[in-house]
């Protein structure tokens, strides 16, 4: 039994020693590929993903028609269309199962990321063009969709594509299994694979520092009364993730200023309000 519930209730520590509201180590880099318009590498615990963004650029031949496996923006003829591809490496998980291009689960993730971006990016600024997001999963240990969303946000920022705000995501679970109606159940933040297999959980993605939910995916059975608690913890986790990502972007920016690649601000934003 990966998560010994009796141990948890005694020490209130999870299998990897975290408390209920601890995120795992989040490490991320921005602009990892010189050749790409935008790129990022992100680790949430042992879940490791990388992202490359191309565009906005002229659509490649054959990309125009909605091909299988690449989610396509619809009803947005006037703006850039967004194509998302997720490749899960065979070595990324313990079972080493190869997931083909037509795996519905992966296609669903592609569509989810594509639709989250479509509502957030200012695509209307780039008519007749395509933004291609390629995601590679190198290692899986839970919170996969969340990691993919976070990596995408970083890479899109790196590509300099205007957006409303960060979209950050994380998972939230509950220590009670679906059947148990016990009120003592604690919510948990940022689940690893073992916890995901054992406990009900959901993935939540929010916009910026707000409580607005862009993505919410739950695939396990859980009492509806648990939803609010899990959602609150998840939204709070997203805010934590946002602060971390924001720090990474700013750090990169300051480094670029120091190197002379980017000019400093003409003035301070704070002085404008006077």
């Amino acid at each position, binding site marked *: 039994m990966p998560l010994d519930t009796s141990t948890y209730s005694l020490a209130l520590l999870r299998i990897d020693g975290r408390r209920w509201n*601890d995120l795992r180590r989040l490490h991320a880099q921005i602009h990892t590929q010189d050749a790409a318009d935008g790129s990022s590498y992100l680790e949430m615990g042992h879940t490791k993903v990388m992202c490359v963004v191309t565009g906005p650029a002229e659509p490649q031949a054959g990309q125009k028609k909605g091909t299988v496996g690449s989610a396509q923006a619809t009803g947005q003829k006037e703006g850039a269309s967004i194509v998302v591809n997720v490749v899960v490496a065979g070595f990324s998980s313990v079972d080493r199962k190869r997931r083909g291009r037509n795996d519905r689960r992966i296609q669903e993730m592609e569509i989810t990321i594509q639709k989250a971006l479509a509502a957030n990016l200012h695509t209307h600024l780039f008519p007749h063009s395509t933004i291609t997001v390629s995601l590679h999963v190198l290692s899986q240990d839970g919170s996969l969709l969340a990691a993919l969303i976070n990596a995408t946000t970083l890479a899109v920022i790196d590509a300099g594509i205007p957006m409303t705000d960060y979209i950050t995501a994380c998972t939230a679970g509950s220590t009670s299994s679906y059947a148990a109606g016990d009120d003592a159940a604690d919510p948990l933040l940022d689940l690893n694979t073992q916890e995901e297999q054992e406990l009900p959980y959901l993935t939540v993605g929010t916009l910026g520092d707000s409580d607005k939910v862009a993505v919410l995916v739950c695939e396990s059975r859980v009492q509806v009364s648990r939803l609010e608690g899990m959602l609150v913890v998840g939204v709070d986790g997203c805010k934590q993730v946002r602060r971390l990502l924001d720090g990474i972007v700013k750090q990169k920016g300051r480094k670029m*200023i120091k190197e002379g690649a980017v000019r400093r601000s003409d003035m301070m934003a704070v002085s404008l309000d006077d």
Partner: protein
Amino acid sequence: MLDDESVAQDEDDEDEEQGDARDEILTPGTVITSNSQWMRGHGTYVPLNTSSITSSLAGTLTRTNKLLSVRPLRARYNPEIGDLVVGRIVEVQAKRWRVDVAAAQLAILQISAINLPGGILRKRTETDELQIRSFFAEGDLLVAEVQQLHQDGAASLHTRSLKYGKLRNGVFVAVAGTGGGAGVVRSKRQLWTMEAANGGGKIDVLLGVNGYIWISKHIESDAAAEAAGINRMEESVSSQIYSSQNNHIDVTTMREIARCRSVILALVENGVKVDEDTVTRGYNEAVEFGRESMEDDIYLGGERGQRLAAALAGR
């Protein structure tokens, strides 16, 4: 949980921030100002039901009178009228070419916007349209100027000057353009000729503002035509200018062209902007580096690149 290292780094940065608040980086969703006297420019938006100018990019703030914009840390090239760009022909259509200039959309080059062999003032004929591929075919590289911008942001190019046209006798390098970040920046001269070391003769460096770069052997005849004055120039427009055949290039020249290319890539890798000054000085440094070893190594990756960047920063 953050690892100790990055926490430590964060603290470092905070110290710096206090040192100079103009090092501040705006990120998407950051409110710049709620004061209504300012106008919003590129890289900003005003969220619904508010009057706050908010950043939509990661970058630094620029102010032009009352207009506030955010200059992105990095972005794709965004064409502006008058830009000197290097492009690659992607598609040949009936009366025009579609050219990759690293922008969001392919640029257009009309057949009426090029110099036709036999003089600028010659009237374009249907024969020209039929043999459109004899001027530029798919994959050809060219240098051109942005002539106008369409409503949707697509650019139209022209090559109606002897400075512009098909590119030969050199090597192509792609780096980031003027959209932001390290790469080519707009400067006084995008194109210059420099004396190569080790008897390599003269080489031309052409930094397209779109980040596409062409480094080639300098061909004297062009200069001669230039010197002959504008009228003669027109006459000298011969079918030669659309030749895809390289002139003879000495191995020594090739080595120096390659060295120059290494310098540019090393600059980009180490986050140094690419302009005439950095390239020229970097090249001179690289020549010195080369003298250190017998085999005159022109490779400038990794540590050697960092050394080069450090030498430039040291001034």
